[in-house]
């Protein structure tokens, strides 16, 4: 039964905790060493099951991809080998998902048509944030991986371009820009929106895009509220494109 020294204990505990945390933080590098070298993770082209190909009418439907908040399924209208319209026949619903879906899906649809590929980027949505992961860009090159089923989380990790899956911290519309293989200006589509929460001018997104192209190397975090939706959308889109043979 030793004498207790409460003040001493408090000071020691505080000092130990603070110095421990600071030490841990300082041991981490400022940039991800594995980022640049990593081969782009394969896009999980979801298996063609569930896809209802209606070749005659020129529409093709990708497989439904499960995300944390619900299923996403993309239908493309193809004519003369070009995608003319994209729509989501299934998207997450309920709670915040309604708002996020309403925000994100039109943008994703437009991005799909513009990109003519699954090389689109996540749309930022609600308040959830995620830290951008350099090098973890899915869908940079189309990878045909039919029949390969992957775990949801792996898909999410690999399929989401600029986002380390999941909520956490994040910023105002910071998303990583991906340039398609042919260099700048070939369409750098960044549909990352700043906080859906606050008022933002409607034209901030194109401005962001231009700024990003100009800068050449923006470091933007996607917001993960629509990240899952975006990831699922991309995969479903990919499977639709695979079916269309494009």
């Amino acid at each position: 039964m030793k004498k207790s020294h409460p003040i001493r204990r408090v000071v020691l505990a505080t000092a130990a905790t603070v110095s421990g945390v600071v030490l841990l933080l300082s041991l981490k590098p400022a940039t991800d060493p594995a980022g640049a070298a990593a081969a782009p993770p394969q896009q999980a082209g979801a298996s063609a099951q569930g896809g209802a190909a209606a070749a005659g009418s020129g529409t093709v439907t990708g497989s439904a991809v499960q995300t944390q908040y619900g299923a996403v399924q993309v239908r493309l209208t193809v004519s003369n080998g070009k995608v003319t319209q994209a729509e989501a026949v299934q998207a997450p619903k309920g709670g915040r998902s309604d708002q996020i879906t309403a925000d994100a899906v039109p943008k994703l649809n437009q991005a799909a048509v513009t990109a003519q590929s699954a090389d689109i980027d996540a749309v930022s949505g609600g308040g959830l944030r995620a830290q951008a992961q350099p090098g973890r860009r899915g869908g940079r090159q189309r990878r045909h991986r039919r029949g390969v089923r992957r775990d949801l989380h792996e898909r999410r990790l690999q399929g989401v371009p600029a986002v380390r899956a999941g909520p956490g911290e994040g910023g105002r519309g910071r998303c990583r820009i991906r340039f398609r293989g042919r260099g700048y200006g070939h369409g750098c589509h960044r549909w990352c929106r700043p906080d859906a929460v606050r008022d933002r001018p409607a034209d901030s997104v194109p401005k962001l895009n231009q700024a990003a192209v100009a800068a050449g190397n923006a470091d933007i975090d996607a917001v993960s509220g629509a990240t899952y939706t975006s990831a699922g959308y991309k995969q479903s889109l990919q499977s639709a494109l695979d079916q269309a043979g494009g």
Partner: protein
Amino acid sequence: MTTTLAGGRAARRQTMRRIRPRRSPAVPLLLAVWAGAAGVLWLWWSNTPAIADQAGKVLNAGRITGLLAGYLMALVVLQMARVPALERRVGSDRVARWHAMSGRYTICLVLAHIFLTMWGYALQAGKTLGDIVQQTIDSIDQLPDMGKAAIGTGLLVLIGLVSVGGVRKRLPYDTWYHIHLMTYAAVFLTFWHQITTGNDFAVEPTAKTVWYVLYGTVTALVIWYRVITPVRLNLRHRMRVEAVIEEAPGIVSVLISGRKLHRMGAEAGHFFRWRFLAPGMRFSSHPYSLSAAPRPSTLRITVKANGDHSAALRELTPGTRVWAEGPYGAMTASRRSRGKVLLVAGGVGITPMRALFETLPGAAGDITLLYRANSTQDLALWDELAKIADERGARLMYAVNSPDGERPDISAESLRRKIPDIDSHDVFMCGPNGFAQSVYEALRGAGVPARRIHHESFEM
């Protein structure tokens, strides 16, 4: 059931052979806790490839504190789950002190986590520290399960404030206790945001599983040991008040009868948490030690009228039903490591000592009891003690204030004079804190090693 053998070396050797001191598992437990903390930090480490800027630093600090707080919160609840391994082997009083310390630390970690995370979000959004309040409100609005977490945190802060020494002393114990029980609700509410909003759990499915297992195990243990086990115990033994006896002014003994009481696993030195189902006493539960060895049909507790509850015990009518939880406590014969034992009791601390005096195995001359009280009238249970001392050949000493109020001299020298070989004794102590502290110092001064001084104190 004890056998006291008449003196002689053979007898002493026999007593020694039966003694196998059980070491408290405190050290391995603490090592396990630290290992768990290291695992939690590793979880953060493996999910964070880089930290880019100041916002990243602040956010990651928030994440580390959040993970540690979540881990420790489960342990804080586990400590109070009345797990027998903790209550009987480490000691209820020690576990309660750990609980208080780790509870305070956890609340500080939670507050640090909130501050750092909100600051980090603000920084990432390009704002400054001043916008932290707005950022907090926004986060609570948008992120999943944050509303619940906010309520839970508010509860935790309230519980922490109420447990601060100055406030706690002013509240009646039962009010404080019932507020404190809301910790379960607070933990339940804050758990969900860890899984859904926690960055490290989103990327690592095994981490989610581990977290569910951790909290699920703690929940199961709480339900088993705090709810199911007492119900089983009381249905099995059906205890009732048999008689209430006044031993000395202000000190009453309550005899409790029941079925198969010797099968409860109670030993001398154990205590139970008693709830008497009488009007006005139904909602309060208090710990009292057994003051006699448990017999198949009777248990006895001896209580000093210190507060409302103990004073009300005098008015108990025989036949009142009793709800008991236990046995708890680590100050039992299993802690002994030597043939010779000194029992030191101060005031109402004679209660467990009286039970140990009766049952500790020992030859004549091995057991000594020192009873400190204010005056000879306050020496409760003296007749019984004298009788036991007579039968066993044990020594019985008392120390009271002199008629003009002068305190007896219990110091290293006087102890060594009375008990020359005190440094080869095991010492069991029970009494008010100031008394226990001064006797501890005297014993250490007399040469008794700290590991041989066994003491139970519920002071926080």
